[in-house]
Structures are given as structure tokens and as C-alpha cells.
């Protein structure tokens, strides 16, 4: 892509901003051949500190999840198995 650095930087920033906005609206963003970005809700849960036995109620939260597309998965298959 032939463009000055500043333009690319601006575009990248705008893209990130757009994606963030969409995600805040809890929409799924799908990039063909790459994967989906999705907001998932993690339900509240009880956690017990293993050492102190203090039980803590962790409130629900929203997190961004990324799931790779099958196309990307196939590409990754060609990689060597050692890492």
C-alpha cells in the first residue's frame, strides 16, 4: 500500500476507534479470512483464595473475544509444530 506513514497511522487509529465503538455497542465484527471479534459476558462468580480461604464475589464483566476464522486456521496448520 503506497501511502505516507502519517496517513497509515491515521487510518489505523480510525479503524481501531471504529472497531472499539462497534464492540462497545456489543456487535460482532467479522473480518473475512481473519476472524471475529465479539463481546462476551462473563457471569459473576465466587472465587476462593486458595491460601487464605477468603471468598470473593467477582462481579460480572464484559470481555472481548477473538475467534479465528477457518481460513486463518488452515494457514496456521502449515506451521511447524514446535514452539
Amino acid at each position: 500500500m503506497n501511502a505516507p506513514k502519517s496517513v497509515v497511522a491515521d487510518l489505523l487509529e480510525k479503524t481501531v476507534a471504529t472497531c472499539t465503538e462497534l464492540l462497545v455497542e456489543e456487535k460482532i465484527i467479522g473480518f473475512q479470512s481473519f476472524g471475529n471479534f465479539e463481546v462476551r459476558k462473563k457471569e459473576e462468580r465466587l472465587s476462593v483464595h486458595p491460601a487464605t480461604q477468603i471468598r470473593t464475589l467477582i462481579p460480572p464483566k464484559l470481555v472481548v473475544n477473538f475467534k479465528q476464522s477457518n481460513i486463518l486456521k488452515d494457514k496456521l496448520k502449515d506451521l511447524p509444530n514446535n514452539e
Partner: protein
Amino acid sequence: MNKDKISSQEIIDLVASKALVSKRAAEEFLKAMISSIEEALLEGEIVKVKNFGTFKLQWNEPRKSVNVQTGEEIMLSGYHKVSFTPDAVLRELINEPFAHLFPVELDGEIDKTNYEGSEVPLDPLRIFEEQASEIKDLLFEIQALSSSSTKPTKETEIIQDEILNPDQKTEIPIEVIDELETIDELEEVDETTEISEFVIEDNEEQLQDNQDIITELDAIEPVEIEVESESEELEMETTPNSDETEPDKRKLWLRVLIAFVVLIAVGCGVYFVYPPAKDFTDTTFEKTKMSVLRTSEKISITDMVNTISGWFSPENKIAEIPHIVVIPKDTTAIDSINAKIAVDSLQALFDNPRVYTEFIATERFKDGGRLTKFAKRYYGTKEFWVYIYEANKAKILNPDNIPTGTIIKIPKLNPLLINASNPRCMQKAMELHDIYVKQ
């Protein structure tokens, strides 16, 4: 919740309109971006997009599994996976609806953990009770033997050492008794063991009636003294040889010591067995003190007979009293901390009703806006939203649900009050948070 899926094309359109570039350029850029991320990942690199997140390749090991239908074991081959870790900025923006929630330690459990400390010493007491019965057995054996008295001065030294070590305290009676092989003393020790059991039983029944126990102790104390004076007389009679007075004095002192140690042990036992009796700690403490005083009185009586015990007992008292004092300290730790806090000026800031006269900004509530968001922006930490709420109480009915368009003022706060690195500021904010959220 609308889970609409946005396709690449829509993203391209949005980016194009936002960056004021042609759709073609945006499309080109996005494709280039994704392919460059892919390439970098395929080379095993970590790709980080500022304010968005980090892409990383993750190798999943091959693993065994079972075919659900046939029950056959199959091998799943290992594979690479793209892991995405959202950036802190993105994470917070996404989690906005739940940003006001904090992990809560459950109240009921806190009590339990507090109790933990006092539940542990239960075992030493059980051992103590076992030892009490052991002592009885020993006494019967000794009575049967009724051998002559042997008085090694070494033992007093050992006892002294052990008094300083409260954990081994319960063992002292046995050792001492092993040494004290006189019938007179057997009687007395028997008496004291009985007394200690007596007191334990009382306590096990109920601690609620403190007065009962105190009177009980009152009743017990004189008996002890009587027994002692009796044995004193007996000893005076049985010791015609002036050379033997020195060991006898030692014996006397030992007896006093035993009584004293048993009392202390009982006092500790009382405290440890009854975590719910914390409320009565003060009274128990007083009681123990009383008994200590009585013991010292006893010692002063024996002082007239010998000077050695007089020399040892103050030291004894000094060694033991601090030990008693230490125990209540644990439970009243919070109180003492509070007392400490009360002294300084920060507490004054917390206690005085805050008056908001100066404002640094005015904000209009947007859809999905949050006080925590403003707090984060103006004070750097979301926990201090409570102060914004305090300043705008008149306009905000429910801090969890503020109608769009509400105009709120952001107060100017004392920097001391919103010092995020000061745990007390955070604690205060949390307290206020709890108060307001529960409303």
C-alpha cells in the same frame, strides 16, 4: 442486546467515512492491515495494535480424546491458535456497564477467617485437658510410691524458661509434679488441677454470666491459699533441720508458681476456646488480672517465709502479664488502628461533611455515561466517583441509573482526599461506595 454481525464491508464503509477517505482506500488499507498481521503471526511474531490489543500465536498441544459414539480413543493433533488479548483501554471501554462493580469479600466469610486465628489454639487446650487427666494418674502413682522428696534446683530454671514460652506452658505442671513427690504437695496440686478443670467446665457451659465465674474464682482462690498455708505449716513441722530450709523454700515457690501457671493457662484457655466470647475479652482479661493479683498476694504471704520467691515473683509477673496483654491486642487491632487514624488530619477530611464550592468542570450525561468514567477522567481513579455523587446528590436519584442529559458538576477535591496511592483514601471511597450503592 443486539448481536448484529458487522461484516468487513460495513467496517470498510465506516472507516472510510470516519477517516474521510475513499472506500477503496479504506478497503485497501484494511486488507493490507489484516494481511500484515497474518504474515507477522505466521512468522511467529507478536502483533500489538495500540489501544486495541495483542495478537499472539499459541500452540495447543496434541491431546487424547474419545470418540463419543464409538468410545474409541482418538488423538487430536496439536494446532496453532491466534490468541487475542484486549488492551487495557479497550477492556475498560467494553466493560463500562459493569465498571462500577467491585469484587466483594463476603461478610460471613470474613468472620470465619477472623475466627481462624482463635480456632487453631484449640488443640493445645485439648492437650491441656488430656494432660490434666495424666497429672491425676501420675498423682495416684506417686501417692502409691510416696517416696521421699527430692528437690533439684535445676528444675526451677527449666520452669522459668518455659514460662517465657507459653506454648509449652501446659507441660510445666507435669514436669513440676514429677519432681514434687511430697504428699502435702500432692494434695495441693491435686486441688489446683481440680480447680483448673472446674474453671474450664464452667467456661464450657457458658461464658455469658461473667459474674458467676468471677465469684466462682473468688471462692476458689481462698481454698488455694488455705491449702497452701496448711502445707506451709506442715512443712515447717517436717523440716526440723535448718539446712533443709533452702530447698523447702524452693518447693514453696514452686507451688506458688504452679498455681500461677495453671491460672494463666486457664485464662488463656478461656480466651482461646471461645471465639464468640471475644465480647467478653475485656472482662476475661480483668478476671485474669484479678487472679494474677491474687497470686501475687499469695506470693507476698510466702514472702515472709522466704525472700527467694519474692525475688522471682515480680519477674514472673513481668513475664506473664505482657503475654496476656498480647492476646486481646489481636482482636482489638482494628480498634487500635481506628484510634490511630482518628488523630491525624486525613480522618478529619473523611469525617467532616464535604462541602463542594469549587468546581473544575461541568458534564452532561450521555447515553451509557457513568460517574466512574468522570472520576477516572478528572481524578485518575474511578473509585472516587462517590465524591462527584456527593456533590450532585440533589440531581442524582440513583447513581446506578442517571438519565441522559443530566448536567452534573465535577467538584474540586482536596488532593489528599483523592490520593489513589493512599490505601486509606481508597478504603474511604469504598466505604462510601458501599453506602451509596446500597441506598
